[in-house]
């Protein structure tokens, strides 16, 4: 294989309009048709469509423009450069660590490529509880299909890596159905470094698809530029005020016909909070969901080498489908990629006991459970608030209801791992030790105090906070994506979701943003556009 070309470097040489950071100086004033905050899943899809429809688009991105030439498959590069808060963003009580992208392409630049359409049960719940009659599976299907075609989302035909195959084998032994995960890749080298920025441009993230397409159409990209707040008057946004990232006080004023927030959950509600946007029903920032994740490690008799190969290729929804969606909390099981930094910070304990586990890295298999939050009154999610310095903070109380789900998930994962042949299983909980058989693990997990900070909980899926709703008292955003109280502001990102998705959310964001952006282009009187 030859060295991959860098489409970003090529585009910059051809004169793409990029300012901020080490690129052209940031202008003090900008006028455009549409200003988009964020270049991730929602912002990227929207930018391509609106630029193709003939609108002058400006994209504002807080993170840097990095590309395959920069991606060296090193955590020490990737976390400080490509992730929010150096991959150490935490909930208010520090009990949940949150992974979110902060770079051109947003989380799509660093995600693990898992692509699922929004589950039908989730859409049914939205229609019943949030007045979202237009969010039926059949209505959304063409928009998902277009996104799938655009981003090369399809079956992954290479055999799963051992870390994923252990999930398949363990589940099969217990009679639990597992299936393959579709991925957004083209010519993937199966390196396993998706979370560190794809060094071969195989991952069809926004970085290498929609953002370049928008730039080719003449869109402007402002990088390392932080959206501070909107200037509001008479139920409309007058301007967006921005600042170079890391500097205090806005110095850039963007005037547009229409504004789009796509900074991701936590950040999008924060822009509205800083703008003192109208919120007559107290819906802004509430119902923020995380798919809280708990994990179980296992030492296998053979090599696992969870760092190599497609990070996520097998999943089971058995524990989602065997419960009513509004009953006891269900969970999706997947296997995560394993690299040294994330592994060392996840393996609990200290000293010789921790070292004994760290030294078994090559034979360590890890499963994770994504808890489907937001479908029960005891799972109301979290609330985004602002700190004194204007930065956002998510207060997400881990309720007893959620943590009992976490206990069941630890049990399910340990049972599957022993069925797959594990020598020992270590649930990721501060009171756990290695257990040599299922009976021992089951009894121990049953007795764990399932408390925050004792149970390791992480999240890579932040959703909600600007929820869609058919009536203003139920949410922030109308079914067409426009803010209920601000006529020329739309929200096109994961913050739209009125519950969690119950699956890795990238394709849900692509499909829904695709539909909302096409509708917006028509309302703005622009040409018709569809994703290529």
């Amino acid at each position, binding site marked *: *294989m*030859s*060295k*991959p070309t860098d489409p970003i470097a090529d585009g910059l040489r051809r004169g793409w309009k990029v300012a901020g950071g080490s690129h052209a100086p940031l202008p003090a004033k900008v006028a455009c048709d549409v200003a988009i905050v964020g270049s991730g899943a929602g912002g990227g899809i929207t930018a391509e469509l609106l630029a193709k429809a003939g609108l002058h688009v400006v994209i504002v991105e807080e993170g840097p423009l990095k590309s395959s030439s920069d991606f*060296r*498959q*090193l*955590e*020490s590069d990737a*976390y*400080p450069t490509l992730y929010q*808060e*150096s991959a*150490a963003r*935490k909930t*208010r*009580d*520090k009990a949940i*660590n949150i992974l979110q992208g902060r770079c051109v392409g947003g989380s799509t630049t660093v995600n693990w490529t898992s692509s699922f359409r929004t589950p039908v049960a989730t859409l049914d719940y939205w229609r019943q509880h949030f007045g979202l009659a237009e969010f039926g599976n059949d209505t959304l299907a063409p928009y998902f299909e277009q996104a799938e075609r655009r981003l090369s989302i399809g079956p992954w035909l290479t055999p799963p890596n051992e870390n994923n195959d252990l999930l398949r084998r363990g589940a099969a032994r217990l009679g639990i159905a597992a299936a393959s995960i579709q991925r957004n890749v083209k010519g993937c*080298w199966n*390196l*396993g*470094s998706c979370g560190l920025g794809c*060094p*071969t441009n195989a991952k069809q993230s926004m970085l290498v698809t929609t953002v370049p397409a928008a730039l080719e159409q003449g869109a402007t990209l402002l990088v390392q530029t932080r959206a501070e707040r909107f200037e509001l008057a008479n139920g409309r946004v007058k301007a967006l005020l921005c600042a170079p990232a890391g500097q205090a006080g806005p110095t850039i004023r963007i005037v547009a016909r229409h504004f789009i927030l796509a900074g991701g959950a936590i950040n999008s509600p924060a822009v509205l909070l800083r703008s003192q946007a109208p919120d007559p029903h107290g819906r802004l920032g509430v119902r923020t969901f995380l798919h809280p994740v708990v994990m179980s490690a296992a030492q296998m008799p053979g090599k696992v080498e969870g*760092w*190599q190969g497609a990070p996520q290729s097998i999943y089971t929804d058995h524990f989602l489908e065997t419960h009513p969606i509004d009953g006891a909390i269900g969970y999706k099981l997947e296997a995560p990629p394993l*690299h*040294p*930094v994330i*592994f*060392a*910070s996840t*393996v*609990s*304990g*200290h*000293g*010789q*006991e*921790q*070292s*004994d586990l*760290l*030294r078994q*890295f*090559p034979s360590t298999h890890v499963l994770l459970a994504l808890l489907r939050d937001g479908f029960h009154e005891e799972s109301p999610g979290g609330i985004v608030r602002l*700190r004194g*310095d204007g*930065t956002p903070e998510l207060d997400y*109380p881990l309720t007893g209801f959620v943590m009992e789900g976490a206990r069941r998930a630890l049990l399910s994962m340990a049972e599957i791992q022993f069925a797959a042949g594990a020598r020992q299983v270590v649930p990721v909980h*501060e*009171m756990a030790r290695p257990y040599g058989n299922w009976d021992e693990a089951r009894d121990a997990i049953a007795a764990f105090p399932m408390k925050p*900070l*004792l149970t390791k909980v992480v999240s890579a899926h932040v959703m909600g906070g600007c929820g869609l709703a058919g009536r203003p008292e139920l949410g922030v955003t109308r079914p067409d994506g426009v803010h209920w109280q601000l006529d020329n502001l739309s929200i096109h990102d994961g913050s739209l979701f009125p519950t969690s998705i119950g699956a890795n959310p990238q394709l849900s964001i692509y499909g829904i943003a695709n539909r909302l952006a096409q509708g917006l282009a028509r309302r703005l009187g622009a040409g018709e556009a569809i994703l290529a």
Partner: protein
Amino acid sequence: MHRRSWLKLSLGAAVVLAVGGGAVALIEPAWREGRLTAAGRRVFMHTGRAFLDGSLPIDNAQRTQALAGLLDRTEALIAALPTHAQRELSQLLSLLATTPGRRTLAGLAPEWDDATVAEIRRALQAMRLSALTLRQQAYQALHDITGSAYFADPATWSVLGYPGPAPLPA
């Protein structure tokens, strides 16, 4: 103390200092002008030798060098955190560097420089399972930062049996 956040650490610090009889004015900041101060380095050095016991090189000279590398990478890690997190960490480390803070928050009687690995590990274990949220948060912060900073360096990967990223064509 349930759900106490680090943002309330200043109050916690005042309480601890009152208990310990210390003086707020004597606290040395742990993070200043983008660098760990001697106080901050002292805490990470000694918690580091306990957290990483069994993973650090056995040879004395190599171990000293490995701990120096840990501190440099810890500093780089903290420098990349947002200001609010740096501020909270600085408060935590400053407190741990004082005698009353070390005794109350970490539960460690001897000075950091005099404490054995076993003594520091006992203190860490008590923080880890403490009923006080603040002590648990402090433990988690030290655990995650130490593990992340130490194993960010390819020179440490032999402990993990990790070969490094797959090579790409030059």
